[in-house]
């Protein structure tokens, strides 16, 4: 018994270690962006983000004047007890007590620094990156040497508002329409019920690419391109099969007696739907709502095609993609921007994780 217990314990140690390793690998990418978004513009460009963790770095403890020491860079020199050529000192020469002597600059105008390796962290954090990315106005960036540089803001706030305006109706409208349909499929008898539901199931996996060209033509005829309505309707259309399917699965399992007693009391379908079914289906409605919200908020393709013509309606994902395209190496903007774009999805995710998981378990495949 004792030995079995021991192997079990060893097993669980291995299990936890492997799990920890995987979790660390999975978290590092996000952590890197998060940490970097608070670092100074110049720090991000000149040093790696993990320098915020304790690490050993060379720090100058003394400066020596070349002329005072009377050194000739063209021959072998002896400084602080170690000797080497100019090129060797340029690279840095280690002393026996762990210091490093480095020649800074060229042969004529150089100076010599004595450096010591010490534990340090780079904790020079700032909110400037967020200020620049979020605001729409020009942003004044003060360099370490005091000069001021004016850079245009990225107006992430405007994009954020646009994304909200797109996401909320594009989540609520399909749910409303799908809930009515799911109720009809579950509790009403009508001709064509089965074939219509088979259509819903078939549409679950149809790739939305199939619809983009014809729908864009319709929008052109209706002069709808670049309006909120265009993208709400598109997301409604693409989200409806999954919404109807999920809500049907839920609504059809509600106990029959409740409904029947309501009908006996003379309630109409509409009353039963709004007073009974909707309140009872809140868990299913919530889980699909989270799903659709994240999907719409994170969508790039549909926005690119139906809103692409109107720069005023640019969404968060489009804004981000534009920054990647035009200023792909300005990491202070990219990191802060990426985090602004993730803010709401992450809040929704952590706040409502339980419903989200339930939605996934209900069997969601989206076309």
């Amino acid at each position, binding site marked *: 018994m004792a030995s079995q217990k021991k192997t079990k314990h060893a097993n669980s140690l291995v299990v936890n270690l492997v799990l920890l390793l995987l979790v660390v690998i999975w978290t590092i990418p996000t952590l890197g962006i998060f940490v970097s978004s608070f670092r100074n513009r110049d720090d991000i460009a000149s040093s790696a983000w993990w320098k915020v963790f304790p690490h050993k770095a060379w720090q100058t403890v003394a400066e020596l004047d070349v002329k005072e020491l009377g050194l000739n860079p063209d021959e072998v020199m002896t400084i602080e007890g170690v000797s080497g050529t100019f090129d060797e000192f340029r690279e840095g020469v280690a002393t026996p007590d762990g210091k490093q002597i480095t020649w800074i600059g060229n042969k004529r105008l150089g100076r010599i620094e004595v450096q010591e390796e010490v534990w340090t962290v780079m904790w020079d954090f700032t909110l400037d990156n967020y200020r620049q990315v979020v605001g729409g106005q020009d942003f004044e960036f003060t360099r370490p040497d005091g000069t001021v540089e004016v850079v245009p803001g990225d107006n992430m706030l405007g994009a954020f508002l646009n994304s909200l305006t797109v996401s909320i109706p594009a989540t609520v409208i399909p749910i409303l*329409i799908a809930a009515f349909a799911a109720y009809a499929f579950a509790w009403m008898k009508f001709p064509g019920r089965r074939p219509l539901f088979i259509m819903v199931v078939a549409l679950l996996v149809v790739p939305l690419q199939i619809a983009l060209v014809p729908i864009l033509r319709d929008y052109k005829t209706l002069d*709808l391109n670049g309006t909120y309505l265009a993208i709400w309707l598109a997301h409604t259309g693409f989200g409806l099969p999954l919404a109807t399917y999920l809500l049907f699965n839920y609504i059809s399992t509600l106990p029959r007696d409740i409904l029947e007693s309501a009908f006996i009391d003379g309630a109409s379908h509409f009353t039963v739907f709004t007073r009974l079914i909707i309140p009872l289906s809140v868990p299913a409605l919530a889980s699909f709502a989270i799903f659709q919200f994240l999907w719409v908020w994170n969508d790039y393709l549909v926005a690119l095609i139906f809103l692409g013509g109107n720069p005023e309606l640019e969404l968060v994902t489009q804004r981000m993609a534009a920054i990647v395209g035009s200023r792909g190496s300005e990491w202070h903007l990219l990191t802060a921007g990426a985090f602004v774009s993730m803010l709401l999805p992450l809040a929704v995710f952590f706040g409502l994780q339980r419903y989200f998981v339930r939605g996934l378990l209900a069997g969601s495949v989206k076309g």
Partner: protein
Amino acid sequence: MNLPQDERNDEQALGASLLSLIGRTLIAISIPIIAFYVLYQGFIFLRDSKAPAGIIAIVAIIWGVGGVGILFWVFNNLVELLPDLWRGRLLPFVFVGPAIAIMSWYLTIPTLRTFWISLFGRNGPEDGLNFIQLLGSDNFVGLSNYAAVFTDSLMREAFRNNLMWIAFGSTLSVAFGLIIAVLADRSKFEKTAKSLIFLPMAISFVGASVIWNFIYEYRPAGQVQIGLLNAIVTSLGNQPRAWAQWVDISPWNNLFLIVIVIWLQAGFAMVLFSAALKGIPEELLEAGRIDGATELQIFFRIMIPYIQGTLISVWTTVVIFTLKIFDVVWVMTGGQFGTHVIATQFYRQSFTNRNSGYGSAIAIVLLIAVIPVMFYNLKQFREQDAF
């Protein structure tokens, strides 16, 4: 024997069913159309107004959501005014009609329309010609777009890459999801671990591309490497690389894009597997252990067969997902460096090159690729017999 009477009843019934058919169709179509018209007028007004963005946003949300709700209410009340028989016939279509009409407009009919467009050249079928004239027009190219899809070298590259995406992307997503689910099931830190692995699911593809671009960030040798991967590689004494753009190892540079999707998708697989594993009866596992099975044997002989159904559905979901992959490739490389996939080719042909015939053919190919899954789903649905 009142034959005439019966006949008259039949006639009445026929007339009634015809009327109800018309009524149903009218309701199914008119709710979305009226809704659409009201919303449309509102939007044209909003689009042209000069109000501040915040106010437009709030008005738009109320307008859109409220408008749809009110329409259902109005139509329901109209139908409630009808006599019982008619109410019973029409009411289901007030409920189900809008969903069906919108799905048909956005998905069902477009499959046919896209197929039709794919038979034509650059600009698709011309307006104002009838069916026969269209078939005879110069623009009609028959199936030659499809021939081009399968012979074009960029398309072949896209097919090859999509196969890589499926082979590596979906398989590894499922594998990692399964491994993590099994490990987490035996750990005390199950909840925290699962949350952290699942977290990338909330991040957009565009955001994920930024995150991984930062990891792959390239600086010439000798400079400080601020990207994690190059920092590791150079500290081991190797050359820094621009990983996703590394054409010399093409097609393997695709793997650097595929990793991103594995990172995003493993959490999805993990959650579903985790739930399925919890459904395995404890006695079954205990019995296996008593018989002296090793943990590996238990994994392969008991767990895997038990969760087979979940395994298949997760795998097909992830395959469909990777088949349509677009954002990651588009933002990371734009399809250059040998990384085009079917969906980026579709976008490039349809919207950059404005060759809608060719683009539509690519979309149809994508549809054909998911048809086996569609049939599998339908078969499952028939077997459930819940209907």
